[in-house]
């Protein structure tokens, strides 16, 4: 059967998809073959599995439960700064984990602001290390995401329904039963599943705030088996468990979550006729203020703690920043080299295989891929010498699912709208790609590249597996400074990392939108 004529070829995209699939599946196969299943799981392994599940469940539960009132308040109130707050809710995505952890320590740590205040009242300081610290950090990262997902549910209730309900004289209780509970029943499971899946693969948070036999995630256990014991068999076995868990959770999340939450339209305030009472208004104001303070305080803490140290950073930090910048550049280029042809292939009608390859990155965690690549590389080359290239590659693979979410719909739209005109003008192939597809996708390319660069810049994952004492990216260097109790220098470096990540995102995103062509 003849396919419809297309202005661009699918071959490069199919090649990129095959490369991604081969890399990820190859790493997984290497892990599976290397795993010493006969040895079974020791008590500490079971403890890691249990802890992983418990912290992910708690993190998801708290994030979503707290997100409901925040989303409701944002959905039914209009105030100046609302757009900025909603934009801020997207920021944790590009916020390096290690920066947030340092910020949380500065606020909630033993010598943090809250503990100091408690001390004045004669109370003992907070204890942040362990399960509750891990959950706190996860809520910090995922409360905004859950809020955006649920807010989207609220915004998708057609305004006419609220009007109709108001017309029928529905009070707050009736409004909830008629409109809001059904929506939450639809949206909340998806949000829970997404946050749960994200927290399952938590590494950097567990590395910094967890640790010890009672607070070790599987990812962290893989790292420890690898770094401390160099027990590849055990690392591989743990990786297999992690693959099974993340694979299942990713499937559940994909099934339950209809939308990504990065979508537009969130800055539209619904006109509402209910909840005009004084108590409801106060409640919403309080909820919004609390959420804003919870999100802004740690960032403010990093800025205030880091600024004085910024002028006197050790040379090792600048060196690490240079490495991080290089890794981010390479990773972003790799990502675009993979994602753009894949998006073009989907737009040319080859959806199934390409999108599946794109989703593989969700099912595998960075440390599992890293372990797999290490097992493959070990007999061939010195993996430690390849630490930076491998980090760039794994970062690109991890950013791929997000990049495809951003690029594919636009590519499909462009080909839909201009494909025939391009064909009629004999532009098929490179002229169409250059003059039409890339030109019209600039904003999306900039956004995806910005995300990829920021994610790579702030990533503390696979680099921790591979790096030797000589080389470190900036996040790893911050972790080492923390380990050496040089908190002042760590804060300064964290502020530098925050600035670099935000700058990378801003420059690329702006570059895409600058001279915006309508």
């Amino acid at each position, binding site marked *: 059967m003849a396919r419809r*004529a297309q202005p661009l070829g699918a071959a490069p995209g199919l090649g990129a998809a095959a490369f991604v699939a081969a890399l990820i599946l190859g790493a997984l196969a290497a892990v599976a073959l290397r795993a010493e299943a006969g040895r079974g799981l020791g008590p500490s392994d079971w403890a890691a599995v249990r802890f992983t599940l418990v912290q992910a469940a708690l993190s998801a539960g708290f994030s979503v439960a707290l997100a409901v009132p925040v989303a409701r308040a944002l959905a039914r109130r209009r105030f100046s700064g609302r757009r900025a707050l909603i934009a801020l809710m997207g920021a944790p995505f590009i916020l390096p984990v290690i920066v947030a952890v340092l910020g949380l320590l500065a606020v909630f740590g033993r010598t943090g602001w809250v503990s100091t205040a408690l001390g004045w009242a004669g109370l003992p300081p907070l204890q942040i290390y362990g399960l509750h610290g891990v959950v706190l950090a996860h809520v910090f990262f995922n409360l905004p995401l859950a809020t955006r997902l649920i807010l989207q549910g609220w915004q998708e209730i057609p305004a006419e329904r609220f009007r109709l309900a108001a017309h029928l004289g529905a009070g707050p209780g009736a409004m909830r039963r008629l409109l809001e509970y059904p929506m939450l029943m639809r949206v909340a499971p998806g949000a829970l599943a997404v946050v749960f899946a994200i927290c399952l693969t938590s590494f950097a948070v567990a590395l910094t705030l967890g640790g010890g036999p009672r607070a070790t995630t599987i990812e962290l256990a893989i790292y420890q088996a690898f770094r401390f014991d160099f027990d590849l068999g055990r690392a591989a076995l743990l990786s297999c468990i992690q693959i099974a868990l993340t694979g299942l959770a990713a499937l559940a999340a994909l099934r339950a979550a209809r939308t990504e939450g990065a979508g537009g339209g969130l800055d539209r305030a619904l006109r509402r006729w209910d909840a005009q009472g004084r108590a409801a208004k106060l409640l919403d104001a309080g909820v919004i203020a609390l959420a804003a303070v919870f999100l802004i305080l740690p960032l403010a803490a990093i800025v205030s703690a880091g600024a004085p140290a910024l002028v006197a950073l050790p040379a090792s930090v600048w060196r690490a920043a240079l490495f991080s910048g290089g890794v981010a550049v390479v990773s972003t280029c790799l990502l675009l080299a993979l994602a753009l042809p894949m998006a073009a292939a989907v737009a040319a009608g080859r959806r199934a295989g390409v999108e599946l390859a794109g989703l593989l990155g969700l099912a595998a965690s960075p440390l599992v891929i890293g372990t797999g690549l290490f097992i493959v590389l070990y007999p061939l080359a010195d993996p430690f010498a390849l630490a930076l290239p491998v980090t760039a590659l794994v970062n690109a693979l991890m950013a791929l699912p997000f990049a495809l979410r951003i690029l594919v719909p636009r590519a499909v739209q462009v080909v839909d709208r201009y494909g025939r*005109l391009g*064909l*009629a*003008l004999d532009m098929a192939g490179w002229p169409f790609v*250059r*003059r039409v597809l890339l030109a019209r996708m600039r904003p999306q390319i900039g956004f995806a590249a910005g995300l990829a660069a920021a994610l790579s810049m702030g990533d503390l994952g696979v680099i921790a597996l591979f790096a030797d004492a000589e080389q470190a990216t900036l996040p790893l260097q911050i972790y080492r400074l923390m380990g050496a109790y040089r908190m002042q220098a760590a804060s300064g470096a964290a502020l530098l990392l925050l600035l670099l990540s935000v700058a990378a995102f801003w420059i690329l995103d702006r570059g895409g939108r600058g001279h915006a062509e*309508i």
Partner: protein
Amino acid sequence: MLRFEDVTIRNGAFTVTADLAIEAGRRVAVIGPSGAGKSTLIEAIAGFLPVIAGRITWKGRDISHTPPGKRPVAMLFQDGNLFPHLSVAQNVGLGLRPDLRLDAGQKDRVARAIDRVGLTGMEGRRPAALSGGQQSRAALARVLVQARPLLLLDEPFAALGPALKADMLDLVAGLVRETGATLLMVSHDPGDARRIADQVIVVEGGRAHPPGDTAALLDDPPPALRDYLG
């Protein structure tokens, strides 16, 4: 001569059949109820829909399986005829070189075409900075530089007001007279056909009938056309 030899065109689950010939240099309106297959017929000539039986020939050469860009065809669609991120001159230039590497002579041709459609001075503008009528003119300037012997119009002026549409049809009539191109245009409006076309092809129920003289057909329509015209 554009010939449809027992042609069946597939458009999803829907097919259109045609067995007819159009003489070179004619101006032909394709009319009929919506959903009857007018656009399907035009898109098959342009190469966007597959011919699953029979063949389409132009001057004796089978073009049924030629890629769209290689056919002797210039086409204007209902909308989206200009790339919004390219200037008028670039949009017109695409008619000469899809990669826009124009030499001095080609640039000169672009300028003359823009002048011919009355857009002098607007070469550097983006389509968004043009009115609807000016956008149509820019697209026609590209048709002019393409200089293909077949011009297909799939109601590109449908969104324009009546006076502007009449202007555009007159401009099209002028252009095809100058170039000697064969014109096929889809239309809902018998007035359009009378204004510009000397022949009419009626498409109804998935079948394209051979062309007939415009005045004769519209003055004394066969039953299928009569139902449509009301």
